[in-house]
């Protein structure tokens, strides 16, 4: 799914004392099948931005285009987009309401008017895609699962819609390192199958090895955007706490005069880089 914005501006409560410019003139274009990370301090406009991609919010000025079609007040067009693009909110398990995992995951699909056999098939496929065994989990209460399992069920509940794009707002919050790894594997799998994936996260390190693009916002404006290495280089100057931990270690080494690259964000790559510096003669 091609996602574009042109000079997108969003103002909350315009003309009141609480007026707040949440986004100012954002222009971006993400190709179908991209994996995009959005980061930035609290209040930078990340959540506001993603709510424009399925028309939950409409621009104060500027445009949002999905596959070339502008999102506006046309209800039918919004409905079509929402069938293709799913949004996973922060702490999505707070929206659980069903008695069983099956009913939770089946809810959206059942509203599409599919046969119950087809709904059941899609629920089974969806649970297996997130790594939860269908027979073991279908009858359990979604409220009695671990935090990591709940997050996976919440994401699984969108998959029966057979979406083309998935946007997740802080999907790793509250998950342990095992849960974060499992989530990264799931997102990698969705992307392999051609889905466009957009993730808002404070912790770039959790998903950086999957990303094609990073968008870093601050107070509604773009600080850095584009391919991973370039954005990390920019963040190393003034936004150090946002760097993935591996990149931060490399940056600290460079500060001490070590001849290593800072464009490294995976453990294995850091090992190689450090071993070759250690064995070499320079710096």
């Amino acid at each position, binding site marked *: 799914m091609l996602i574009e914005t042109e000079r997108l501006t969003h103002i909350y409560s315009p003309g009141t004392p609480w007026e707040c410019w949440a986004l100012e003139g954002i222009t971006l274009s993400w190709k179908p099948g991209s994996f995009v990370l959005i980061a930035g301090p*609290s209040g930078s406009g990340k959540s506001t931005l993603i709510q424009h991609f399925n028309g939950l919010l409409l621009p104060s000025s500027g445009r949002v285009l999905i596959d070339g079609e502008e999102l506006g007040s046309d209800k039918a067009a919004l409905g079509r987009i929402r069938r293709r693009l799913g949004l996973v909110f922060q702490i999505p398990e707070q929206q659980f309401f069903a008695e069983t995992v099956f009913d939770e995951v089946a809810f959206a699909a059942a509203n599409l008017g599919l046969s119950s056999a087809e709904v059941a098939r899609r629920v089974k496929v969806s649970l297996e895609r997130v790594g939860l065994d269908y027979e073991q989990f279908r009858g359990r209460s979604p409220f009695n699962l671990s935090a990591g399992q709940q997050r996976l069920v919440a994401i699984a509940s969108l998959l029966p819609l057979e979406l083309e794009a998935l946007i997740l707002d802080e999907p790793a919050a*509250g998950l*342990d390192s095992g849960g974060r790894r499992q989530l990264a594997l799931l997102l990698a799998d969705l992307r392999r199958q051609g889905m466009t994936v957009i993730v808002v996260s404070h912790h770039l390190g959790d998903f950086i090895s999957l990303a094609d693009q990073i968008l870093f916002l601050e107070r509604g404006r773009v600080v850095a955007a584009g391919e991973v290495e370039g954005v990390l280089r920019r963040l190393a100057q003034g936004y150090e706490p946002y760097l993935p931990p591996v990149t931060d270690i490399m940056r600290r080494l460079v500060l001490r005069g070590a001849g290593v690259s800072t464009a490294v964000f995976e453990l294995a790559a850091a090992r190689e880089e450090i071993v070759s510096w250690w064995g070499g003669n320079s710096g």
Partner: protein
Amino acid sequence: MLKTRGLYFSYRPEGGTPFALAGIDLEIYRGQHTAIIGPSGSGKTTLLKHFNGLLGPTRGEVLVSGRTTSCTSQLPSIRRICAMIFQNPDNQLVATTVEEEIAFGLENYRVDPKKIREQVDWAMGKLNISHLAAYPPHLLSGGQKRKVAVASAIAMQPQCLLADEPSSMLDPDSRRELQELLRSLQRELGLTLLQVTHYLEEAALADRVLLLDRGRVTADGPPEKVLTDLGRLHAAGLTSSTAAELAALLREEGLALPAGIVQNQELVDSLCLLKPSG
């Protein structure tokens, strides 16, 4: 300060589910900063809730400054000793302004209004949020809400803070600020700080780390011990801090790094110090 003896807890004592806490014997000392780590569902929050009596043991006993949480008449005084900061601050914000929010707990204990005023002002000063006194809490940012929650807790002048993932959902700057704030309150006021965290980089800053796995304490010691015991952490499904993981990989490559590296700067310092000059 805090003590458990043979603590077992089940959410369904009649059976059917395994124990959420399965035999915990623990002593937390006054003024200590302890981080509780462990995979999801290992019992971290369940354990924390036992220390201010939100949950009571199925078997065994929990003592807070010598008072047992199994005796309901002791609970009010236990809750003044141990204040809790929950995972999601939205779940504990009730008032229409920040100062009313912070006064709420004290009002429930029928503290003298003048004294309430003093303690609320003191707590807002400590957290640098005096300028937000008349602000509606639900309009604050996530980081500010956390500070209000911490201010409400310390306004009660507790001896112990129980913090359940206080920095999840915060951006890295606010996370670091909150962490430094908790740490300085702990030192300055001599508070006992018990903190659940999923980020082992954060646990690296504590005096002591407890690893919970399936309701049992499987490691207990200073961060440089627990966070470098990668075998045990991996067995629990966790990865350690990036510095500890990378140091282990580099040692496998024959780099003679010292034991106990858990923070980024420690790794960098060791590497630069020990690198053979060419």
